[in-house]
């Protein structure tokens, strides 16, 4: 067991039958994760998947690693406990737009601000899948679902915008229908030190089919999305002939030559946040890829450093010291 073996994607498959609907976007995501794990080269026994409840949250059962399919909305909190308890582990959070942003929204934003070293994959299908089709906090206003038969009246969250607002050190987006892009993004996320928030556009064929079609379909994808890559110019279009640049505090279209170079590593979140505002203009492409990636101490580091420091200063506490403090007196 001591020799590190190069694992393959299939080594991460558990013996449990995968039970998503045929055609569900979840299949492509699990395969992307399995490939990423193989590529990044982790030890199976160090990997832990923690999920909440939802279709997506059945994920851990299908992975031959450690895992917990917990309760609705609490994956981030449980995963925080796992990671702080043992920082050596590679802890992944698998969650949905309902699980992670509705009931679990608070744990999500708090784990992001604390920069807990979790890889968080948010399966965003803009619907509650497991409970059979109710609107979620990312469903567009007006969407008719079982609980909004006359159209949803709730304005949705933009997950990346929310993550930035919470102070996330890593924010990215990819899509189920582009395995290549997904693997690239997941690999960067897997290597990020600290909380990595990855939104994945995931199609729910049954209850919200084609919700991302206007951006993800092969025919339009290149025009309607832009893949942001650190250090590369912001270019998009089938012919890679279109660019984006900053004009004061706005992002505007330009030719490919004029395109600005994307830098997700700036301390200011300004540019990343501007990117999340692109959706206000329907003619603009939607940003995909890594929006932000900065290094900052993680919660688990700081916690353990403090334990070490105090221990260095005071010496390892023995059971006896705990009880027999200096204010003890003796009755003889």
């Amino acid at each position: 067991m001591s020799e590190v073996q190069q694992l393959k994607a299939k080594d991460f498959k558990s013996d449990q039958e995968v039970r998503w609907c045929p055609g569900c976007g979840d299949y492509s995501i699990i395969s992307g994760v399995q490939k990423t794990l193989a590529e990044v080269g982790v030890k199976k026994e160090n990997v832990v998947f923690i999920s909440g409840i939802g279709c997506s949250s059945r994920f851990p059962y299908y992975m031959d690693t450690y895992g917990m399919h917990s309760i609705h909305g609490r994956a981030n909190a449980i995963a925080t406990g796992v990671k702080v308890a043992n920082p050596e582990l590679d802890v992944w959070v698998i969650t949905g737009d309902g699980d992670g942003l509705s009931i679990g929204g608070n744990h999500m934003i708090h784990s992001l601000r604390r920069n807990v070293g979790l890889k968080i994959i948010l399966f965003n299908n803009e619907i509650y899948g497991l409970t059979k089709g109710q609107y979620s906090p990312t469903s567009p206003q007006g969407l008719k679902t079982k609980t909004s038969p006359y159209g949803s009246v709730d304005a949705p969250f933009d997950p990346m915008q929310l993550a930035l607002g919470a102070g996330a050190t890593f924010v990215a987006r990819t899509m189920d229908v582009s395995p290549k892009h997904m693997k690239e993004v997941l690999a960067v996320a897997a290597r990020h030190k600290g909380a990595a928030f990855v939104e994945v556009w995931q199609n729910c064929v049954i209850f919200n089919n084609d919700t991302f079609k206007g951006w993800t379909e092969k025919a339009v994808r290149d025009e309607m999305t832009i893949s942001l890559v650190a250090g590369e110019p912001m270019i998009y279009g089938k012919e890679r002939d279109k660019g984006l640049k900053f004009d004061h505090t706005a992002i505007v279209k330009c030719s490919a030559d004029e395109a600005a170079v994307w830098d997700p590593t700036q301390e200011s979140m300004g540019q990343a946040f501007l990117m999340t505002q692109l959706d206000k203009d329907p003619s603009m492409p939607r940003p995909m890829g890594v929006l932000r990636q900065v290094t900052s101490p993680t919660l688990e580091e700081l916690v353990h450093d403090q334990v070490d420091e105090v221990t260095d200063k005071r010496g390892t506490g023995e059971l006896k010291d705990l009880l027999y403090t200096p204010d003890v007196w003796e009755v003889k």
Partner: protein
Amino acid sequence: MQLTGTQFTDTTAKVGNDLATFPDFPAEIRAPAGSRAGVSGFQIHFSSHDIYTPGDAPSVLVAMNPAALITNYEDLQPGGIILVNTGAFTAADLKKAELDVNPLTDGTLKGFRVIEEDINQRTTEALADLGLGKKDVLRCKNFYTLGMVYWLYSRPMEPTLEWLQKKFAKKPELIEANSRALKAGYNHGELLRLFQGRYEVPKVEDAPKGHYRNIMGNEAVAIGLVAGAKLANLKPFLGSYPITPATDILQHMALLKNYDVITCQMEDEIAGICTAIGASFAGRLGMTTTSGPGLALKTEAAGLAAITELPLVIVNVQRGGPSTGLPTKVEQSDLLQSMFGRNGDCPIPVVACATPSDAFDCAVEACRIATEYMTPVILLSDNYIANGTEPWKLPVMDELKPFPMTFATDPEGFSPYTRDEKLARNWAKPGTPGFEHRIGGLEKDAVTGNVSYVPENHQVMTETREAKVMGIRESIPTPPLNGEATGDLLVVAWGSTFGATRAAVERLQKEGVKATHLHMRHLWPLPHGLLEIFKGFKRIIVPEMNRGQLAWVLQSRYPEVRFESYDKVKGKPFQARELKAHFETILEEMS
């Protein structure tokens, strides 16, 4: 007031008296000084023999203003001494206390020995040449008063003088001022002989030999949890969220980082318990501390801990309910919530501590049950224990028996739901090659641990979880009786009603009454042997600071006998004398 109270406590313990204290804070951080809501009390009971409560009826009351006087004088023993600071009895002071007439002059205090002293003035005089501002001077009045009380009870001033040196190391002028005030108060007592005679409480002669230390309940829980984890050979992880009166436990454990302790103050109670569950999954001993409303929030996650069968200690320091209720007052009204406040059939063992020092033992016991049986455990304390102090006879180190956890060692055919003879499941932690597995909140196959919807399996698993918890009975003793094994009256108490009940019953016993006290540390599962005990008595009284919750449980389990609830839900502990009076009424009915 709390500060001077603590000084008196420490000094008294060092003199060798047995003691119990009960601080009583206002609910507001700084409720307006002088108002009734702003009264900050500190009660201490000390004696030469074992004592169980902070004393029902104090013999001396020190009232620094009219509000303090009016809200407390009724509790005093007939003929007790009231020391009053007349410097704080101006018309304005009376108004703040919502008094129309001065209780010092209208006969209210008839039957007490009232000693009036303008302590403000005395203190001002004593510190006149120090050049302090008026505010600073008046802050020293509590130490002046403490000096008077030290004189009254023949306490030495040295411990407090030393403490002042440390406390104000950076502000020498305050050392001087407070020390001088203390001494001035002492001398004032001596010189003027204000009191008729002086109390001398000799040290407890028959105190068992050993090492002692004063301990507050919350601190005892904190170190008990750390000790419990050590005995289980695990590192503790506390995920918590502040809430009165449980916050101290988190605060105390946060100091113990060099004991391998990790504490995380989380965003809410749910995150608190969830991080603890995660930490247990990762191989630490997860813990979470809270009070009633917080426990309500944790119940869903407690169910997850129960079905995943992970060790977890949930500490609930009870306060007055329902809802926010009386957050700074005492109550025992979370027993039924602890037993039943989860969806589904979801038994969880419940342990309750009786006194501040017992809290240490109970915390260790909770850790033992959690780890030996792979289960969440609820440990109940309450505001009275949490903030009360008593001398704690420290266990000799050998007495602390380890109960080391073992992790699964053989990956061959490993299944997380294989059980040992105690029905505890196999534990393997992430990071160990060959034991990769998944657990979760869905029902799982009794053998493989995989998700299972098989009808028969659910019945088996439900019964197994129940049997495991009931099996804890095999590891706990039948509680000892204080008194004879049969008789007229059995008093069954739990938690902090221990003290008043024990005192009341012992007084009755001394009067020759056939009364017995049974204290219940384990509330679920109920220990073996209870019915046999119950059958030996004519009447069984269950005094509780709630509307009869333990009585409800006992009545359901032992319909063969009758339990009579005696309740007090006033945010205050029982007094031994009120219990005794009640028991006497019962006994009279019987005769």
